[in-house]
């Protein structure tokens, strides 16, 4: 039973943040209702706090295996030519001018004139039962290949970072649309009343190009926006009491606050006051539960080892004036975030979004290049990702957790040629430009098939050759795997039926990867 398509769900959600449902559910108003709400903890909270909590769990449109999503976004766009899309023909054409038909009518960010083809800079191995080609830069990931569905035929119509990221994450290249995580928590709520339903974790020392709009709630209520949890400072903004106020005193202030608010409610009778009391209690619980879940130091050593995580590591990039200079090297922040992602999903968080910055290897400057930076970035994520898949699998959570890996686009099979340095094969200056026409993403768990190689590109890896997958197809598939009918799931906004997958019904669910 679902009324997503019947009533403007936005109106309903708004009402739920207010008093409307409080009375509708028959709980009545006043301190009795409040008492029962506050009594609800963990599992029980799902029912007891439903009237005041717009993040209360809701049933999907239809039964689904995936309950949660961990989305690993490699901001800047890693090279699929080096990592996933093995093209022997590129060896043959290496150094030759790119055929004209690939350039005519195309727009590039930096490439000018006729660039030369560029072979993969690192070796590929055939791995797993499925015998897929994967880069030698990803040995740990290779060991998990049979749990993963690799899509080598992705394409997008955005070739700049900010619009590209917005398109992947919000379904629209422009600002002002809800993030996928907002849509999903809006549709399904969250399983843990003491934690945000949509959590964002950053590594690589920088916010991604699209900024915080990537986890904004757009025209959905702000309660559905992503909450950035940080590994330094307050894990959630404003979470810590000011110095000098301990938890006991905070409790005393909240007791007084509740008593006074109840007096106010008695005098004025506004149900919103009751909601506010409940939200203060939730805030108080979050002050405990968030730091707890964010503390990975309690994980056993062998688990941390599996991810390559190092609790307590503070990236130098976090405090640098210009962290661009420091995003390199042996930084375990992404690995730590992967451990956190598992802990959050385990605690019932619906959507965990990781952004790792530092994959934009143009070679516009020395060492911001495929040959120097890609092995470093690959090492930062390889073991962590394999550890995440393995850990979830061992805990029986992979079936219910969808992992998505990818970026806003891929990189060209041609080398970039916009400066004196990167126009010839010169160590530290081997770069590729943005490539929206054909690239690779992968997806695992959550009711997808493992060991699948889906789609392919042409001889030089320029265009999809079979089973092309567009961004809205991917989004439709993710919603579908969560039990949210991508075609029906919408909100009415400014005269439009807004959907994550856009206005037309062209997007397809990628049935080839659905188990």
């Amino acid at each position, binding site marked *: 039973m679902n009324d997503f398509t019947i009533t403007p769900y936005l109106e309903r959600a708004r009402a739920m943040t207010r008093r409307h449902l409080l009375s509708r559910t028959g709980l009545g*108003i006043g301190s009795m209702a409040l008492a029962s709400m506050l009594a609800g903890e963990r599992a029980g909270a799902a029912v007891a706090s439903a009237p005041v909590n717009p993040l209360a769990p809701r049933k999907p449109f239809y039964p689904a295996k995936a309950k949660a999503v961990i989305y690993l976004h490699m901001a800047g766009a890693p090279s699929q030519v080096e990592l996933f899309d093995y093209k022997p023909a590129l060896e043959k054409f290496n150094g030759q001018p790119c055929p004209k038909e690939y350039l005519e009518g195309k727009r590039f960010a930096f490439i000018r004139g006729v660039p030369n083809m560029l072979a993969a800079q690192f070796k590929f191995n055939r791995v797993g039962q499925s015998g897929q080609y994967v880069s030698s830069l990803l040995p740990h990931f290779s060991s998990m290949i049979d749990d993963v569905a690799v899509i080598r035929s992705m394409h997008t119509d955005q*070739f700049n970072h900010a619009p590209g990221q917005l398109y992947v994450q919000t379904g629209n290249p422009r600002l002002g649309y809800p993030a996928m995580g907002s849509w999903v928590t809006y549709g399904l709520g969250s399983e843990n009343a003491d934690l945000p339903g949509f959590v964002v974790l950053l590594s690589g020392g920088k916010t991604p190009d699209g900024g915080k709009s990537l986890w904004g709630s757009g025209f959905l209520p702000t309660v559905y926006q992503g909450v950035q949890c940080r590994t330094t400072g307050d894990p959630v903004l404003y979470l810590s009491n000011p*110095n000098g106020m301990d938890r006991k005193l905070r409790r005393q*202030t909240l007791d007084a606050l509740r008593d*006074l608010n109840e*007096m*106010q409610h008695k005098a004025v009778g506004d149900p919103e006051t009751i909601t506010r009391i409940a*939200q203060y209690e939730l805030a108080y619980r979050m002050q405990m539960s968030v730091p707890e879940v964010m503390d990975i130091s309690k994980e056993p050593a062998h688990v941390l080892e599996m991810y390559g995580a190092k609790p307590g590591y503070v990236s130098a990039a976090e405090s640098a004036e210009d962290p661009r200079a420091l995003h390199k090297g042996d930084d375990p922040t992404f690995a730590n975030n992967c451990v956190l992602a598992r802990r959050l999903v385990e605690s019932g968080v619906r959507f965990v979004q990781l952004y790792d910055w530092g994959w934009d290897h143009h070679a516009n400057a020395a060492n911001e290049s495929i040959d120097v930076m890609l092995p470093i970035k690959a090492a930062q994520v390889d073991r962590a990702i394999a550890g995440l898949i393995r850990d979830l699998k061992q805990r029986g959570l992979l079936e219910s957790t969808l992992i998505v890996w990818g970026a806003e686009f891929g990189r060209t099979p041609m080398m970039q040629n916009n400066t004196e340095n990167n126009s010839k094969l010169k160590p530290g200056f081997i770069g590729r430009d943005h490539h929206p026409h054909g690239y690779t993403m992968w997806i695992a768990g959550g009711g997808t098939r493992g060991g699948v190689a889906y789609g392919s590109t042409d001889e030089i890896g320029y265009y999809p050759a079979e089973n092309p997958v567009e961004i809205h197809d991917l989004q439709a598939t993710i919603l579908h795997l969560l039990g949210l009918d991508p075609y029906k799931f919408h909100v009415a906004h400014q005269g439009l039926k807004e959907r994550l997958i856009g206005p037309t019904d062209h997007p397809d669910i990628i049935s080839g990867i659905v188990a």
Partner: protein
Amino acid sequence: MSHPLVRSILIVGAAALMIAVASPTQGDPTKPAAPAAGKHWAFVPPLRPQPPAVRDAAWVRSPIDRFVLAKLEADNLNPSPEADRYTLIRRLSLDLTGLPPTPAEADAFANDTAADAYEKVVDRLLASPRYGEHWARVWLDLARYADTQGYEKDNHRDMWAYRDWVIAALNADMPFDRFTLEQIAGDLLPDANDSTRLATAFHRNTMTNTEGGTDDEEYRGYAVKDRVDTTLQVWMGLTAACAKCHSHKYDPISIEEYYRFYAYFNQTGDHDGYHDDPRAQLRSPIVHANINEKEAELAALRTELGAMGERLADQRRKWEATLASAKPVWLTLIPQSATSAEGATLTPGPDGAVLASGKAVKSDTYTIVASLGRDDLKQPITAIRLEALTDPSLDKQGPGRKAADPNYVVNTFEVVAEALDAAGKPIAAAAPAPIKLANARADFSQNGWPVAGAIDDDPKTGWAISPQFSRSHVAVFDLAEPWSPPADAASVRLTVAIRQLYGDWLVIGKARLSVSTSAPASLSPVVGEDPVAIARVPEAKRTPQQWTEINDAFLAQHADTSAKRQRAATLEAEIEAATKGLPATPVMVELPPERQRKTRIHNRGNFLDPGEFVTPALPAALHPMPEGAPENRLGVARWLTARNNPLTARVAVNRIWARLFGIGIVETEEDFGTQGIAPTNQPLLDYLAVEYMDAHGWSQKKLLRAIVTSATYRQSGAMTPASAAADPFNQRLARGPRFRLSAEQVRDQALAVSGLLSAKMGGPSVMPPQPEGVWRTVYNGANWKTPDNEDRYRRGLYTYWRRTSPYPSMINFDAGSGEVCLIRRIRTNTPLQALVLMNDPVYVEAASALAARSIRDGGADARSRIAHAFRLVLIRPPTDAELLRLTALHAAALAEFRSDSEAAGELLAAGRAKPAAGVDPADLAAFSTLANVLLNLDEAVTKP
């Protein structure tokens, strides 16, 4: 081609309009005027309904109440009693100024027995400068105001002068039709000035994408679409966004009509450029108001000095006579011909100046030919001078021709001299001689564009003068060798070529040439004609400029005027200094006719898939262009506030109503179309709309006064479980408004009641405390730096707004990101809001300041101090039970901090509080804890 459905709506619509006009029935006021079949209510212009009769006429204070009460009575509901005076003054103050009253103001009102006590408060609040600040924030949501460009780099943009314009316009109660006109087309108005040009920044709040490799034309197109969508949404409550891809499903705008309307907005000079050009250095009406005052004083002084020149005409003539015998330093070249290589019109004036007009040209070469007689050349020519002069016909007076940016670049300045015989024929023996120039100097050269560039061999270098517009400039070039014509020459013909090749319309608007035979060292680049030369011009033939200059020169040597002249010079210097740092605000600049774009439909909204060419036109189903209105943005602006526009006034009054009552009469403020929610009380809406246009003359203050003095507004907001359940959003208005304050009000109130709030108005946006590491964006080195002065405590609307990383605590309270037009904020109630008020340093500091203030002013014992703090925040006196509960908390906290003085010290440090002499730090910490509770109260963050 328009959709068949659209055409049928159009036909039916026209019929409905005729019926509506033909039968101006005032009908049954509780029911909307019956629209003709097929005509959506909102497309029928509102008629002023007769306020209905009601049973309980004694309750009625205004016609508004009759509309409300008639509906209540029909539903067998009673209105609520009037709220008490503490509640009323708090409600009024928050609604009209965004700030709470002081307890003293509240007491004065509570004790005022005058019949018009309430109205006096209303009028005082409407006259407060705080009014404009509060209501500006409402407008800035619609204007999608922000301090950055958006997208990846999200670089800084100087937009705050526009924000100040909005504040000033609202405080001056600029009528909404004029407010509209200036923002949509202030550059095109017949009476356009700097202030109306600043207003056009409204539509420059669109985003600019400067990420490497983006297609500027693509993002320019997005910006224009944003302008179209925002215009229709803000003024007419129409959502045309879908028509940019396909013909509108529900409302009468086809894709073709969308792009025809788009064509009106497709003619401005902005192009998604890195610097948001075109920009203009314009004054904030708030922080630069004193420049205006100085200018007024200067103008008065000049008039006075001019009059003295008149009065002392005899003395001046005597003085001039002494000059007439002197030798002029500069000899003006009176042009025989002046030609533009690109076809502009060059008109020589009697003072020798050549004025450019006619065709706008990107680059140009002016060729000016003039003759000098033998008498003028008794000595060799030593130098030549080029003046670029101001003129009223030029934008900003010039001296360049380009609108908004009247700069110029002289890339090459060439002089050729020819000796002529008595018959005016060239002397065969003397070939035309190109004159070599040296030692260029100017009164001013733009950084990077020195005047020497005009006479070097490089045509890429040149002389420019930005940002010193609106004044004349002068360059002097020495001749490398002083030049004399052959002895047999009767006259000399000079041909001067001024090559201006920069290519961005940067050409001189008015030029004058002169030569000198004096020693070059004595020649400095001073603006103005030589008084000696002017003195030789008969009075009747002098230009106004010459009069000004000769008068100035005369008065300069006249002892009686020296004090006034001194003052004028001081003012000039001060104005110049203050003007130097003016922000460059992006503004709308219409392209000249020959550069206007041809608009094409973007098939499926994709600019890479252009369809048919279209000409500008209004959607056919809507009312026509007002008679005599031009077919451009100015016409659109007039059309928006035309008296027969069925929507604008309704949308505007509905917006005001929604801000006061928490929900609009039409709940979907953003959509008055067929997909929006129907009005809950259309006669009330129509009454307000017609009154707004006719009785109030589009005055927002009058409209607000009419609403807030109604009995409807003055009701108590208290509810019962039954009334809350029956009408959760108070759409029937059987009670007064009660809903959470806006993000800015929450902040401003905390700062106001704690005494921290800065009263400073306007100016660049500020950076109050924000957690470390929130700004960390790619390819943008900007930093968040919180000042240690009053800018830490400014009102929320002055907070620096970065689109991709907006101020987090206000976002938690539902403020918008400023990326696109936000018609209404959906209120939420979340734990993150609780965390902000509990722990954000802004509120920790406010709590400490409130604590210190209460200890200082609240009497001797804890109880009276607590009551004092309570009243500062909630205005009303506390009940005994409330006081008791707070006293218990204070006692508990005091005990805690007495036993842990370290914790007390930490809390005070967090709140930046220092105990005053004789104040126990533990007590201050305990009071800070208590104050924190007060600021977190549901009642505190709720408008009562």
